[in-house]
């Protein structure tokens, strides 16, 4: 620095520092994304890729067989998401509220214990729960028997009516730590003055949670909902490990992820069809994009923010 030159130097460092992220992100996210979109517009006819426009989408939504599988997967996916929204997030908020209570002892222990499943691999979670719920060697039937509730046990993962809900709840068990942590952080960031002021006005206990804390953590809940939405509509691993690529029984646990996998890579004697697979991937992308847009423009802009 000589301080003599007044001409402002080109700020190369910005570009240099941005470059790695931009390059890596472009190479492994943006290019493949456009590659997929492009692949969805082609079709292999006599071993040659031919541009067919939106033919693949016409097949996907027009052909009764394809569209039935697609809507079935979308329906299951929606239910998977609904279970998470109704069970995972309220429980996460409840746990966070309990954890942030100053009277709770061993809070750090609970926090860690509840968060640990989140860092486990899907494969471990899938197999562990499959064993727990196994009608042959699982602990679930034995435990229920011990308390005289054996009649409540069913081979949950093998019944069409229960399998998807069971898998959703397993996933809830695994990921409940994430909303808990985010809400916990949001609750901790609420300044004590506000709570004290509330107390002065006579708002304590449950009323304080509903009328003071909850409105203040709403933006965090919004973010969690979007994360849950994106995560659930991209779900694949748990269902694949627990039920296989055919997502049995009778496709009752088939989500868009497993449907895409079967189509794109093929399964057993079925050869992979990258073009139809890309069409499904594109449909998934559009669904997730719509969901996120609804949140961004419809909900987030209306959320009131409080400056402390």
């Amino acid at each position, binding site marked *: 620095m000589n301080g003599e030159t007044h001409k402002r130097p080109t700020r190369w460092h910005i570009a240099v520092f941005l470059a790695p992220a931009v390059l890596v992100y472009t190479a492994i996210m943006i290019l493949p994304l456009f590659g997929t979109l492009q692949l969805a517009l082609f079709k292999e006819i006599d071993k040659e890729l031919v541009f067919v426009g939106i033919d693949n989408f016409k097949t996907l939504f027009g052909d009764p067989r394809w569209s039935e599988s697609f809507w079935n997967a979308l329906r299951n996916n929606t239910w998977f998401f609904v279970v998470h929204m109704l069970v995972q997030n309220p429980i996460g908020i409840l746990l966070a509220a309990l954890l942030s209570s100053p009277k709770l002892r061993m809070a750090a222990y609970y926090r860690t214990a509840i968060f640990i499943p989140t860092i486990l691999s899907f494969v471990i979670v899938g197999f562990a729960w499959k064993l727990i719920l196994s009608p042959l060697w699982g602990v679930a039937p034995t435990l229920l028997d011990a308390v005289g509730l054996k009649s409540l046990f069913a081979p949950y993962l093998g019944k069409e009516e229960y399998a998807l809900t069971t898998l959703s709840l397993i996933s809830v068990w695994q990921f409940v730590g994430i909303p808990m942590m985010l809400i916990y952080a949001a609750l901790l960031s609420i300044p004590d003055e506000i709570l004290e002021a509330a107390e002065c006005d006579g708002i304590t206990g449950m009323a304080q949670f509903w009328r003071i804390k909850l409105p203040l953590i709403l933006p965090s809940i919004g973010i969690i909902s979007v994360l849950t939405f994106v995560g659930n509509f991209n779900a694949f691993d748990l269902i694949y490990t627990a039920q296989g690529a055919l997502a049995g029984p*009778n496709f009752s646990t088939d989500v868009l992820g497993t449907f895409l996998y079967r189509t794109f890579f093929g399964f057993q004697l079925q050869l992979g069809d990258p073009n139809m697979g890309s069409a499904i991937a594109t449909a998934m992308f559009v669904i997730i994009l719509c969901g996120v847009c609804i949140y961004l423009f419809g909900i987030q802009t209306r959320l009131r923010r409080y400056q402390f």
Partner: protein
Amino acid sequence: MKTRTFALALLGTTVLAGNQALAQDVTLTIESWRNDDLAIWQETIIPAFEAANPGIKVQFTPSAPAEYNAVLNSKLDAGSAGDLITCRPFDASLALYDDGHLADLTDLGAMANFSDVAKSAWQTDDGSATFCVPMASVIHGFIYNKDAFAELGLEVPGTVDEFFAALDKIKEDGTYIPMAMGTNDQWEAATMGYNNIGPNYWAGEKGRLALINGEEKLTDEQWVAPYRQLAKWGEYLGDGFEAQSYPDSQNMFTLGRAAIYPAGSWEISGFNTQADFEMGAFAPPVQNAGDTCYISDHTDIAIGLNAASPNADAARTFLEWVGSPEFASLYANALPGFFSLNSSPVAMEDPLAQEFVSWRDKCESTIRSTYQILSRGTPNLENETWNASANVIRGAETPEDAGKRLQEGLASWYEPQQ
């Protein structure tokens, strides 16, 4: 430049020498997905061949089963694949032949040692060209717990009625679960269920070919009847069979908790080490005593010649040997449960394997009905059959509905069925 010319000249002379079959060693490389069998090839099979054919060395270079098809395809495209290629059955190998990667082996002398059924998995659709030498097949049937049968005073069932009578008796007694199978993984229901008992109904090859030609439909009685039998299986399976997986069933049987196991012969070596009771096997029961029995003797593995191999002559010598009774005996004894497809009888030591293979003399052989041609389109008939068989056993779909659904699916893309 000079060295290169020299090298080319050298190469040229080597090729010439090879062609003239001088005392120049040729090394053949085998591509395979059977990495489990590496020791068997290196210690038993290859030494036997090299002893009989001095001047030809063989290397077995397997890759992981799940990667095999992809690895092989890229090697073939790059021209670096081995001289001999282990062939998957049906469409995967047919595609390699169509792309010119596999040589036509129809004129190989050893081909005479194989029946048409044995060769069908590695032929063009019209059967005019065969491109791989069949190595082994797996046979379906039922393995049973001999001790349990003796304890309950049961006879080995020969007809469907006897089969269900035996199941009833085991169920009544309550010591054993009558049959070990689950529907969680779906494929057992189709492979060890539908395609195991089915050939007795559709008369093996006759029905299978009629289905391919469009003369029979999946809604015909002979194709729906096996589903009707499967529908009755549900009540003889263990509690919660809906969530029982394939390894669960294997353990259930080898731990002695179940009396009968709908099986494929590939289970033999595993069961031999796991189970501490005596096992027997019986073929799928026929409807009436004295009926011709049909078994699923499914062609599973073969070996072909890389069309670009520079050592084609030596490779053909090797393939002739693979088609010989000597190889058949070596292979079948090293891997009980993988049966030689060779027409000449093979003496095997394993009693359970002997029992399985003895059905070839009594019964007519066929392969799984969905494997040839019929699983080329979408919806895929094999995958649909998994789903339908599991549904029928669980009672979620009636046999007639299952047949109707599969027929509609097949007819939607397969012309002869339209």
